[in-house]
């Protein structure tokens, strides 16, 4: 089978595996999902019977599993008991907000991280390089949510110039869509800065190591021997080759990014998937938690697939091998 269909089949298999895993996690181990719901919500027997029928709980485990898959196929993710709304629509709204936060911060993290990583890698062993490595390790060792708390304290409380909560100013009246977008942008500053401070370190370290390895290749010496300047050699020859391993490592970063986003959203009350998970934990709203895990896993699987395909497109050697 050629590359793309095989890879696509693999992704579909993984999504199916996640869905099955999700089923076992929420439907079998803790016993009865209705009992979990009834633990925190007062339900009359009629509602319980209705729910049992909907989840297929009156049948065998295999029957329940098939009903679960059928509901999934119809994008029916269940009903949120704390929000009194279908999980699907709650999730869709949250997903958009998370996507905005992640897109902006990932762009900043990747661009700045690679730039600093190249700077450090091309000065291996010098003082500036050591300082960059040490500060990267320090930032990488900080819990993301704590960095968020510090920034809230410094910029929200001490200086007080930046919004520290939500996605828009409550009860704000906008003169037009531009002022509306400006308000969102202002609310984005601190959450993005928090994610960036911790995550840039990851890209600095990976780019630096990769560039150092490339700098020792023979063709780099040849390029220098041709009389090209250091700068040209580093940026034109080195960076180009060093970026491919960075791409591969980025796939692993995607799943770490989700963890960071959850923390940032909780600290800044950013109304995305992370805050939704946090509120669902507090309310023990299992259908929402279940859907959050499922959807974030599928998004990460798809993102991995995309980065894999992109890698094939960008690396001529892999394309030839195919």
């Amino acid at each position, binding site marked *: 089978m050629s590359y793309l269909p095989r890879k696509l089949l693999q992704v579909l298999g993984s999504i199916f595996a996640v869905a099955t895993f999700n089923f076992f996690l929420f439907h079998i181990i803790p016993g009865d999902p209705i009992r979990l719901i009834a633990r925190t919500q007062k339900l009359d027997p009629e509602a319980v019977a209705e729910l049992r029928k909907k989840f297929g709980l009156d049948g065998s485990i295999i029957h329940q599993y098939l009903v679960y898959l059928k509901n999934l196929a119809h994008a029916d993710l269940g009903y949120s008991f704390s929000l009194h709304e279908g999980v699907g629509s709650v999730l869709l709204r949250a997903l958009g907000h998370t996507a905005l936060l992640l897109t902006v911060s990932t762009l900043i993290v990747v661009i700045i991280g690679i730039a600093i990583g190249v700077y450090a890698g091309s000065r291996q062993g010098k003082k500036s390089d050591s300082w960059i490595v040490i500060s990267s390790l320090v930032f990488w060792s900080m819990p993301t949510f704590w960095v968020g*708390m510090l920034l809230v*304290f410094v910029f929200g409380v001490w200086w007080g110039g930046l919004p520290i909560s939500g996605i828009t100013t409550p009860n704000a009246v906008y003169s037009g869509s531009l002022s509306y977008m400006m308000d969102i942008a202002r609310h984005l500053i601190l959450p993005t800065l928090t994610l960036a401070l911790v995550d840039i370190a990851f890209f600095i370290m990976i780019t630096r190591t990769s560039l150092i390895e490339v700098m020792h290749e023979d063709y780099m010496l040849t390029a220098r021997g041709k009389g090209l300047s250091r700068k040209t050699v580093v940026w034109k020859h080195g960076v180009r080759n060093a970026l491919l391993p960075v791409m591969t490592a980025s796939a692993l970063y995607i799943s770490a990014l989700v*963890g960071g986003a959850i923390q940032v959203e909780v600290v800044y009350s950013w109304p995305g998937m992370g805050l939704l998970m946090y509120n669902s934990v507090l309310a023990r709203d299992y259908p929402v938690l279940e859907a959050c895990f499922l959807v974030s896993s599928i998004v990460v699987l798809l993102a991995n697939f995309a980065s894999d395909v992109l890698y094939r497109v960008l690396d001529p050697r892999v394309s030839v091998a195919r």
Partner: protein
Amino acid sequence: MSSPQVLHIPPVKRSMLAQLWNDRMGRVGLLLTTFTLIAAVIGPIIFVFDSGAVGADATTLLMPPTRTHILGTDELGRDVFSQFLSGSRVSLLVGLMATVISTIIGAGVGIAAGFFTGKLDTVLMAVTDFFLVVPAMPLMIAMGAIFGQNLTIIIVIIGLLSWPRTARIVRSQTLSLRERKFVPRARSLGSTNWRIIKVHMIPHVLPLLIANTILVVAGAILSEATLAFIGLGDPNRISWGSMLHFAFASGAVGRGAWWYFMPPGLGILLIVLAFTLVGHAFDKINNPHLGGSS
């Protein structure tokens, strides 16, 4: 010794600690780790934290540092400094125990897959890749919410979800070891699979495994802190993460109670940094050896 053991150099050298000490990062990491461990063991004995000693009236809540409370009080009027010291134990305990679970699974899966190859390898690596890709934090949160807030459960959850990278690293090392000459030689001398694994694979995988394990500790401590911050910590065993949860939930940040939210965060930062530095130094020591002998 006439056993096949003569055929390889002992991979874990006794001078490992000395080598770590010679590396600047390794030395700082070792000092920080030792300091934190001593503080975690002795600190809570000297400054006993009494979770029931709540403040008498509103003036004792979130009180800035004084002579009796050198790091002030929390939102219930309890001493922050002794709470900080006892929290270090919980954070370290979870980090270390979860790492033990993760390392046993990771090393077991990695060695089995790399040594026996074939179908077993395919299946084990499919499972490993699955857990490598699935975002760990949402899964930890979901499992924490389902199985309850208890220290043992938190340790098991973090341990069960932190092993895939270890398995990958151990597997590739085992695969390359398998191709070396001493394996067929040991086999021709009558060694069983189990003996080859015990005598040849495990000792050679060990240096790499130790470096990785130290980095896993750092990750596990961060995972525990995040879970506790989300509100899934053990309510009876307050860790640094739980302290930050209560500081955040009680609005200590907005009220500028830096004495409450700074110490636990700095504690996590220092201990995670310490393990990261030692892990990186270990990697540096391992790499030339691995490059030279293959």
